[in-house]
């Protein structure tokens, strides 16, 4: 691994750690909805079926989650 490659790996690990910490700040429901939306790419309708909620509630959970994560990463 080159010198720049090692630096990029270190930065990526730090970014991953910060993301993990930001997700820890979410509630379990927010984390689940955010995961299904961002990681799995599910629609709000599909998320609502999975978590046993409504599409509107899933939408609210996602917006609250993305706002919390962005504020956490901005404060870092």
């Amino acid at each position, binding site marked *: 691994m080159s010198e720049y490659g090692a630096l990029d790996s270190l930065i990526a690990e730090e*970014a*991953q750690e910060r*993301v*993990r910490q930001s*997700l820890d700040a979410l509630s*379990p429901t927010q*984390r*689940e909805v955010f*995961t299904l*939306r*961002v*990681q799995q*790419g599910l*629609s709000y309708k599909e998320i609502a*079926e*999975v*978590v*046993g909620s409504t599409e509107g509630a899933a*939408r609210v959970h*996602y917006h609250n989650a*993305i706002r919390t*994560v*962005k504020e956490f*990463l901005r404060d870092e």
Partner: protein
Amino acid sequence: MNRCSDSDIRELLPDLLHGTLAADARGRVEAHVATCGECREELDVLRTIKTAAVFAPQIDVDRVVRQIPLYRTIVPVTERPARTRVVSWLVAAAMAIVVIGGGSLVLMKPKVVNDPRAVVSTQLSPAPNPAESTPVNSRVPAAGATGRTAVVSAPPHPRALALAANVDDLSDGDLRQLMNDMNRFDALPASEPEPVISVDSGTSLEQDLR
């Protein structure tokens, strides 16, 4: 940084990230992201989170599986109500009490004496006293026939001796047989409980006969 007021576009950013948007929608979102700094920043955050792969342990797999209709039809989800669990605990507690109580009664129960000679000693106890044998005698009114036959011909059974306890109703032969029987009881091993009729009482009885 300016706040983006186009919430419809922002909601489509994850779909743009996964490439699931239709062509016209993707063009519209990409055009907005090119001019909106906040949406660009949010898209970078989402891309970082997607590539970070830090979600896996957070998903409640059981809850997700229960949402699958096919799984519901194959394996019906039946949870025992709390009342059933309480009843089960009560039944278990009652059974434990019964077992412990029964065991205690068995341990506290006095031992039954199976030795027939000990029974003989308890049954023979009123025999030497003629005054106390009146009820026994009333049960055998014809002591001459029945009692005599029992004492003379029957083997030395303690019941027969007790019935013939009133010596006034016995003949000399019956009394001698009775004395022989009583002497036989004296030959019991020393380790056994001694009968109530002792050698002295037998001797005095024999003296009375003389």
